[in-house]
């Protein structure tokens, strides 16, 4: 089902391991995501989702393993390395300034100036263009973030992440704090990111949301791969089984072996 299967993946992780003291947070995790693809990263609490994302976004680099980006091996030591490659992460807290308007937030840290004064006109124009291209509806780009709804805030945070020539966007629980209608808005936005050819990784506990937007699901369990599933050939129960570690969930899919290996050693 993956339309770009023959292409080079945007991001490819090979055998990523990470240890915090006595805790082996990640062992030998591998997966890849292509441009124009949305991949869901799921797993129980403590399965290593956040750690994996932090390795990719440079918050704490991996101990071992390789990260390949658009066909070449890269080393991500800090968030700036990730940003320079075109990897943007939207964390649950969104990192927006409530007291600034939408334009101020979209351009935070990247303000456009004409000699000295801020070039509000071109910033506002480009903000409008970006939001329009993503069909994000907001009363006015001069509204302060504080008066936006949760879904609108999430949309602003995602728009900011894709605004700067990003190639890979990582979304951490994008629908966790949202109501039904607002979740729908955000899921539609994620689909538009795919249409625009971005690679997207979505972390979520909500399997219904995951099944609505993703192409493939990567399941982590106890810091290891526990299968990568194509959603068109997988039932939700299989994913639940893979998350919780029940054996019968593993036959359908490609990467059951690492999980079985893990089961033996543990």
């Amino acid at each position, binding site marked *: 089902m993956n339309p770009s299967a023959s292409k080079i993946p945007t991001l490819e992780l090979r055998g990523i391991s990470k240890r915090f003291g006595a805790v082996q947070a990640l062992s030998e995790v591998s997966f890849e995501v292509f441009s124009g693809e949305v991949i869901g990263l799921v797993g129980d609490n403590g399965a290593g989702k956040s750690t994996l994302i932090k390795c990719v976004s440079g918050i704490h680099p991996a101990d071992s393993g390789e990260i390949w980006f658009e066909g070449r091996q890269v080393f991500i030591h800090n968030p700036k390395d990730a*940003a320079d490659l075109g990897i943007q992460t939207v964390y649950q807290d969104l990192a*927006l300034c409530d*007291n*600034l308007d939408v334009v*101020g937030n979209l351009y935070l840290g990247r303000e456009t100036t004409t000699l000295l004064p*801020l070039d509000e*006109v*071109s910033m506002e124009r480009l903000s*409008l263009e970006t939001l329009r291209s993503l069909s994000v509806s907001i009363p006015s780009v001069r509204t302060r973030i504080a008066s936006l709804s949760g879904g609108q805030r999430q949309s602003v945070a995602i728009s900011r992440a894709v605004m700067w020539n990003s190639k890979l966007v990582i979304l951490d629980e994008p629908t966790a704090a949202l109501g039904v209608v607002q979740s729908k808005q955000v899921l539609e936005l994620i689909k538009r990111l795919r249409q625009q050819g971005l690679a997207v990784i979505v972390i979520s506990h909500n399997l219904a949301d995951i099944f609505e937007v993703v192409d493939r699901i990567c399941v982590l369990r106890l810091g290891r791969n526990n299968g990568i599933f194509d959603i068109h050939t997988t039932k939700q129960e299989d994913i639940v089984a893979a998350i919780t570690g029940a054996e019968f969930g593993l036959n359908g899919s490609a990467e059951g072996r690492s999980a079985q290996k893990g089961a033996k050693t543990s």
Partner: protein
Amino acid sequence: MSTLVDDPRLEAGKPSGFRAWLRRLFTETDLGPIPTIIGLIIIWTIFQIANHRFLSPLNLTNLMYQMADLGVIAVGAVLILLLGEVDLSAGAVSGLAAGVLAVLSVKLHAPGPVAVLVGILVGAAIGLLQGFWTTRFKIPSFIVTLAGQIGWTGALLYVLGTTGTINLRDKFIVGLAGTFLKRDVPHGVLIGWLVGAILVLGYAFSRFTERRRRRSAGLTYRSVWTLILQIVVLAVIVSGVLLITNADRGLPSAMIFLIAILILFDFITQRTTFGRHIYAVGGNAEAARRASINVTFVRIVVFILASMLAAFGGILAAARLLAANQSSGSGDLLLRVIASAVIGGTSLFGGRGSVWSALLGALVIQSISNGMDLLALPSPIKFMITGAVLAAAVTIEAISRQRREAAGR
């Protein structure tokens, strides 16, 4: 703060009539400085009724002369509050700068400009130290600057030595605050009107240029009449101030410094990247850091600017009082400074406000103390009234913040 929304009185249907209109007005619209301006009009009315000389050109000119140093220090307080920090050392720093200035000028016979420059540099150095201390060791700024307040007061006493009071005689220094445009400057009235006209025209030009640029970029723009109204309001204020002060000695130079500083810092905070970053750090420092803003740099620079403004305000106060002494910058000055910023509409909790609140707040605070002096109220009464006004102002700020949060602004 959803409690206000959950308030059954607000939920109970759609109440009609004047009270509902009033409630909507206060909860749903952003009134900006209007409540403070109404408060100022009430204060002026009360004092004018109590003493008909309150609104005379003589007293209004005195009022502007007296409030300028307070206003300059309050601009620094606004900058610090925008960061979400607080500077309790502003009063002591202003006193120390005045002391250094006086010792240099009178005891060491340094030229006036040198003494002023060194005084301001002392402020800069203090700001650097306090800013560094706050950011490097991650100590809350109110602790660092509280230590500073005590330390710099000690430094002032040390600098003054056994002298106690040093009277300033240097013409340059005294002229900083007390040069009146009509009385002391040749063609002062004409120059005042010319500069006033340039200000209004410059404002008009920038408003219309902005409108034209927004229009050609296909963005929303204000109607011509809105702009004309804003320009007329500014023109009325400028000519009002000039007419009133020219009926007496003219505009005092201290006030001219305050206006220049306000225009400069309005530009810095509203129109530059650095200013945007001040608001960002005050709004959400973690978000600012992740957006690759150098939060430590922004904080330290703002501490330096605030202490320089405090030092310059202290110098203006010394020039006005013709002396620096052991009580320079002490007493209720610090509280009056912070109250000015807050009364003018700058939030105590960071990220919201404007440097103009320093002007409006200082005007309110100084009107009250000027009016009470005019009525020759005894000290105990003055302290109690000042305390009550400050408490009321901060309460109004807190309520409006709760309303704002309830309305999601």
